[in-house]
Every structure is written in structure tokens, then in C-alpha cells.
């Protein structure tokens, strides 16, 4: 097992998160999961978009691609295609993943790349100071909808299931041990894995607090059949109680990088086949 401290940033690193924020435990959980799975920092890449959650890769020592708002997934797919030996995690906020990145979310699921998608779901836009996110509950008051959100919430689990995602989970940042096990299972899963992690924003979301999530959330029991898609959909559609744990998992669907390329070697090792090029040029005679 790799020493978890290896992933730590030097003491005194400037953190932009507010004290008490649900992002801190997620950061800790990810480090624990990587350490227990023995992933060397050099072999891990975290991709993120923009937002408070998207700053995560700056707070642990691994490779990272902190790109544009909503675009954590396209580079993550590419990185896995170029070097399948890397452990690739896309980690961003709910606004970033489901709002700005909605189209990529949909089409990443269809491709099924072997990456882990951890969504910090605080049901609000944190970095831009408390506007509604696609996950905000109807009625939630915010600076742009002072009378409350008027449209329905997005349902990432149901969308992922209906697009045939092969690993769909929900977790709660308040529960370190269970969430760690879910994330480990997601990293080990061969294919796209979604974990929607409920994460309170203590500054801007006064409605969906630690207490609220604790009351709403419950774990699927041991007997839950993870391969039962209809049951999984039923759980996904239940917004009165929020099912936690691995809701759905299915093995055997080929992952994208195995479909678009041959072998496992990193592409920077490839050299141009000049003989093939010359043959091709001559075929135009």
C-alpha cells in the first residue's frame, strides 16, 4: 500500500475552500482510496473543470489537467486512450458536470471509457456565489431566482442508467469509510463509473445541509442486486429518500480505449512508419 502522505501537498498550501466545506472529506477519501489501491502518484491523472470542487487536483500530488468549465470529461477520455496504463479520474462539481458539461456527460457514458467520474454534488454553484445548479431543488432561493428555482432537478443517476452506464453510485461526503469503498470499487471497475457525491456547501446552500443529507440518505442493503437495472432506476427516481451505495454495476461491456486502439503502450512511444507512408504516397501514381 502506498503511503497516503505521498499524495499530500506541502504544509502551508493555500486552500481556497471554506472551513467546514464538504470538499475536504472528499479530498481525503480520494487520497485514501488511491493509497489503498496502490496507485503511484505518477500513474494517476485527475481531470477537472472549473468551480470550487474542480480545484481538488491542486490539493493532492498527482498529475492533473485542470481545464475549462464543463470540460473535464473530453480530456479524460483522450488521456485514457493515449495511455491506458494511467488511472484517470474526472472530478468536478455538479454544475460543471451536469450543466456546462451536460453534452459531454451524456456522450462519455455512451463511450464507456475506463475512467472514474467523481461529482461533488453540492446542489449549487459555489465558486460563482450561490446561483442554482442543475441539481438545485425546486423552490431553492438564490440570487438569480429570488422566488425560488422553478424547474425540476436534473437526475444524473437516472440519465446515466438510461444511457447504459455500467457503474452508477451515490455517496455522501459525511461518511468517509463507505464513500472510500465506493470510490475504490469505481476505480477498479473496468469502464465508466459515476459517483455522485452529496456534498454540503456550508456557505451558499442553507437548505441542503449535513443534517438534511443525513436524514434523506440511506444505504442500499446487502441484498440489493446491483445488476438489476429496473430496481436501480426505481432507486434513482426516488427523490424523497436518497439511496446511497453502488446502485448499479455490470461487467463485460468493452471500454472505449480498447475499442479505439490496440494494445496498452503509451502513444508517445509510437514512431512513424515511414515505409507505410512511402507505400501510401506511391499508391497515388
Amino acid at each position, binding site marked *: 500500500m502506498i503511503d497516503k502522505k505521498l499524495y499530500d501537498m506541502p504544509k502551508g498550501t493555500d486552500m481556497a475552500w471554506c472551513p467546514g466545506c464538504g470538499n475536504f472529506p472528499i479530498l481525503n477519501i480520494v487520497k485514501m482510496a488511491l493509497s489503498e489501491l496502490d496507485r503511484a502518484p505518477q500513474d494517476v491523472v485527475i481531470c477537472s473543470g*472549473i468551480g470550487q470542487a474542480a480545484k481538488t487536483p*491542486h490539493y493532492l500530488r498527482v498529475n492533473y489537467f485542470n*481545464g475549462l468549465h464543463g*470540460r473535464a470529461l473530453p480530456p479524460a477520455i*483522450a488521456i485514457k486512450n493515449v*495511455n491506458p496504463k494511467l488511472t484517470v479520474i474526472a472530478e468536478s462539481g455538479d454544475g460543471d458536470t451536469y450543466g456546462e458539461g451536460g453534452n459531454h456527460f451524456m456522450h462519455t457514458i455512451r463511450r464507456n471509457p475506463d475512467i472514474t467520474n467523481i461529482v461533488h454534488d453540492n446542489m449549487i454553484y459555489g465558486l460563482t456565489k450561490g446561483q442554482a445548479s442543475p441539481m438545485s431543488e425546486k423552490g431553492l432561493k438564490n440570487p438569480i431566482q429570488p422566488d425560488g428555482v422553478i424547474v425540476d432537478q436534473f437526475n444524473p443517476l437516472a440519465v446515466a442508467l438510461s444511457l447504459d452506464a455500467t457503474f452508477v453510485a451515490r455517496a455522501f461526503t459525511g461518511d468517509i469509510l463507505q464513500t472510500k469503498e465506493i470510490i475504490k470499487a469505481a476505480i477498479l471497475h473496468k469502464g465508466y463509473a459515476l459517483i455522485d457525491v452529496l456534498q454540503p456547501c456550508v456557505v451558499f446552500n442553507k437548505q441542503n445541509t449535513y443534517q438534511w443529507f443525513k436524514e434523506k440518505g440511506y444505504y442500499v442493503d446487502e441484498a440489493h442486486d446491483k445488476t438489476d437495472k429496473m430496481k436501480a432506476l426505481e432507486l434513482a427516481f426516488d427523490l424523497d429518500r436518497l439511496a446511497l451505495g453502488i446502485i448499479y454495476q455490470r461487467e463485460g461491456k468493452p471500454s472505449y480505449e480498447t475499442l479505439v486502439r490496440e494494445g496498452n503502450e503509451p*502513444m508517445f512511444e509510437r514512431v512513424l*512508419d515511414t515505409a507505410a507512408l512511402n507505400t501510401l504516397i506511391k499508391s497515388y501514381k
Partner: protein
Amino acid sequence: MKNFSRDISLVLGGSAGMGIQTIEATLVSVLKREGYHVFASKEYMSRIRGGSNSTEIRITNKRRASFVKRIDFLFALDADVIPHLEKRITSKTIILGERQKVCRGTTVCQVIDVPFTQFANELGNPIYTSTVAVGIVLGMFRADEALFETYLRERFARKGNEIVEKNIEAGKKGYDFGKHIAYNEGIEVNLSQNKAVEKEILIDGNDALGLGILASGCNYISSYPMSPGTGILTFLAQHKKEFGIVIDQAEDEISAINHSIGAWYAGARAIVSTSGGGFDLMTEGVSLSGIIETPIVVHIGQRPGPATGLPTRTEQADLNLVLYAGHGEFPRAVFAPGTHEEAFFLAQQAFFIADKYQIPVFILTDQYFLDSIRSFPEESLQTLTPENHIIKTDADYKRYALTPDGISPRGVPGYGQGLVGIDSDEHDEDAHITESAEMRVLMHEKRLGKIKGIREEALLPTEIGDVHHAEMIVISWGSNKGVLEEALIHIDDERIAGVHFSQVYPLPENTKKLFAKKKVVVLENNASGQFANLLKLEYGIKISESILKYDGDPFFVEEVVKRFKTLIKDFEL
């Protein structure tokens, strides 16, 4: 007697789905093997069936690479061809077609009757009429019949003996008919043939660029289809196995460019191909490449805009778009091939510059260039040794190490002991977000400073004629090289010379002196004179006049020659 001895413009017109493409492909291949110089370009409508499309094939005794208005022979495959090409038809145009079909509804119609239906009936299938048509041209030219037969055997070999024999029969019927027409109408063709041409490569702009992209070591493409940029995506997809290329048809252009930048980050050599409308969506990725100093090569096949514009026509109006795409300030380079050989070379240069300086680089082509076919000797394909600028990292690796030339060695994840981070926020040497004003200035100047090296490596323009002694210099860029060259030959006046730019940004510094004390005229396929404006900005020179065209067609040689003549008068040269 109608004698053709130097330069023939043969146009095939018909609706989509009639097989014009097949006739064009066969004809240019056979004529090239016969030792003629050929150049073909097409115009077509944005539809899959019907409409009115045409292909011009120029058959010349010297190498030519441009479009002429004149039509010597017109093969009209249906009734719409004549009204469609009305402006280009003169009393000298020899029109061939099935009179019954072509002349429907017109009283005066001077068409040499080619009974295609009768041929089809005799051969048992209309599918062979394209081979008949090719035969007719070759018959009129009294080309080598045996060569034609060999070609047909090769081309149809995969389809079995029966198809081969039927095509040979069709070809012979056409050939005899062509000879008969030539005799009856007193048409004489005496174009000189050149043995060396037989061995040349015959290729369109799209594939020439595609080969250059392969030669650059490109192994990754994520793109979303948009004409005429799709051809490169298709080309690479067809060769993915031999060259180990990953092909990703993205969900949209935003994904395509972010995906491709991710591919470079991980160590691939990626390109995205699109047209102006698709590129509009990619601009956020361009500024991402700018700040994270991760290379990207973008090919834009231009077509007229704004928005969806004229989907299948040509224009050079996206120069401003690529010059200013993305927000904030960062260096970039823009290449625009003027010939097929240049496309092959520039693709490699684009990858080289993108990789070395870790910047976004653009290749601007257009529909006219991508769709035009030409032959040239294989030796004129210039290759660069593909260099990979990736380094193996040490444990204390810093992605954005401050260096005198602004280039920080680029590591990739999983290669070496270091960690490779990139960040779209302003960052420090370790790629971590910073709001330090001092660091902002250092990083910004580091990135911007790279333009110095990029400019020093800028490709020199091609001089056409005696630039030093000329009084008027005509400048072209991109696909107008051929028309400028040919118009200058026609004008044949030493007071006028040409300068062609294939790297359009940044411009090489010392070239500015070429324009001192001269009348400078810029020829470009847009309405606002975008390159003329750039020349003013880069060189501070005065532009006397612009020759512009923006109706969706490329320049004809004739109209450029005419403009030159008026300019000579206006400038009192």
C-alpha cells in the same frame, strides 16, 4: 478546323448522383498516364441528389494550377447544365450531350449529339455511360487506347471479369465515337505529351494535406463533421490501421478540441479538422491551449460564412477568426498552403511549430483547394524528420519552469519521476493557481515571449518573377498561388511581380523590405481584405489596392488578368 494545342478546359456538368465524380477521377488518371498535365476543380451544390454541379478539367502542355472561366468542351449530362453555366459558355464552346435530354425546352441548341441512352441500351446498363464519356474524350484526343484499356483493367479488377470486359467495351464505344466526332467537326488536338508526367503523383488537396499530417507523426484526431473539413477526418480514418491513429468522432466541436488538447497532454500528436462554423465553437479550446502551453493543430477548411453560409463553396474569410480566436493574449502561428506540395510540407511544419513552442497552430485551406486535383513529381514532397519534444521528467519537474526563451520542457504523465500538472487559471511554475501579480507578469511574458522564436522560424514567401525590379507587387496567400502565377504569365510584364505567403502569421521580419517603394496589391478571396489588413499591421506598409472576390467561387485566371490590366493603367505603370 478547331485546333487545340496548348491548353484545354473541359467541363463536365450534371446533377449530383450522375457519376461526374467517376468520370473526373477516371479521366484525370488516364490523361496523366498519357503524359498530359492535368488540373481539376469542382463546384457543387449542398445536396446529395439533383442540383447542378460541374467539374473543370484543364489539360495543358505546361504545369497549371488554376481555374479558368473559359470552357472549350462542355459535357452536358442534363438539361440544367447549360443555364447553370450560361456565363461561361461562348460561341467557341463545343457542347456535347444527348440532344434530346440537354436541349429540352430550348429552340436554339447547338449540341453535338452523344446518344448516351443508346449506348446504355447496347451495353445493357446505364452504369457504363461514365466509361463511354471518358472514352469519347480520349478518342477526340486520339490518346493511347491500350493505356486506357490497362487502366480499366486495373480499376475494375476487384469487381470481376465481366465488369472489366463490359467497361472495356464501353470505353471502346466511347473512343470510336470520340474519334468520329473529331473527324466530323474538324476538331484537332495536338497537345504535347511529357513522359515524366506519367510517373507523377495525382492527388487532391485533401489527401495531400492528409499525407502531410501522417508524415508529421499525427496519431490522434477527435473531430465533428463539417464540410469541407470532414475530408481530413475521413482520410485519417481510412488509414488508422497502418498508422495506429485513434479516431474519435466527437459529440461537438467543443469536445473535439478539449479532447485533442488532452491527447497532446498525454503524449499523442493530435489534430482537429473543421470549418469556420465549427471552429467558432472551438475558440475556448484555443485559449486553453494558449494558457496551458499544450500544443494543438487545427485544420480549417474555409467556406463562405457567416454561420452556415454557403456550405459547399469557397472563400478565404476566416483569417481574422484564427488570428483573434480565443480571449486574452498568447502566441500562435497560421499556415495556408498554396499548392498540394506545400500542404504536405506545411502540415509537418505546423506540428513541428506547435510541438516546439507549445502553442495552437492553424492550417487554413478552403473548399477550392481541398477539392482540386493535380499531379506533380513525388520528389517535390519534402519531409521533415518528426521530432518529439517530450522529455522524461525528474522528481522535481516543474511544468512551467521559467526559461529565457519561454519554452518549458514538456513532460507527459507516466513518463519519468515527475508529476505533470496543467492549469487554465493563471499559475506558478508548478502549475498551481496563483493570483500573485508578479507571477502573472512573469508567466504572461514567458508565453508572449515565444513569438520571437516563432517569427524567426517563419517561412519566407515565394517570389514570382523579378520582385526586386518590379514596380507593382501582387500578393496572394493560401489557395491563390496558382491563379497569381498563371495571371502573371499571361500579363508577361516585368513591371509586375508576385509574392505568395504560405505562412500567414507571424510574418518573417526581413521580407518587409521587398515592398519598399512599390505599389502593393493584395489578391484574396474575401470582401474585407483580411490579409491586406494583416500586412499593414505586421509590416506597416501601404496597400494600394485589393483584388477581392466573395461570390463563393475561386478566382478565374481571366478576371485576374483583366484586373491587372486596369491596375497597370490606373497606376500609370
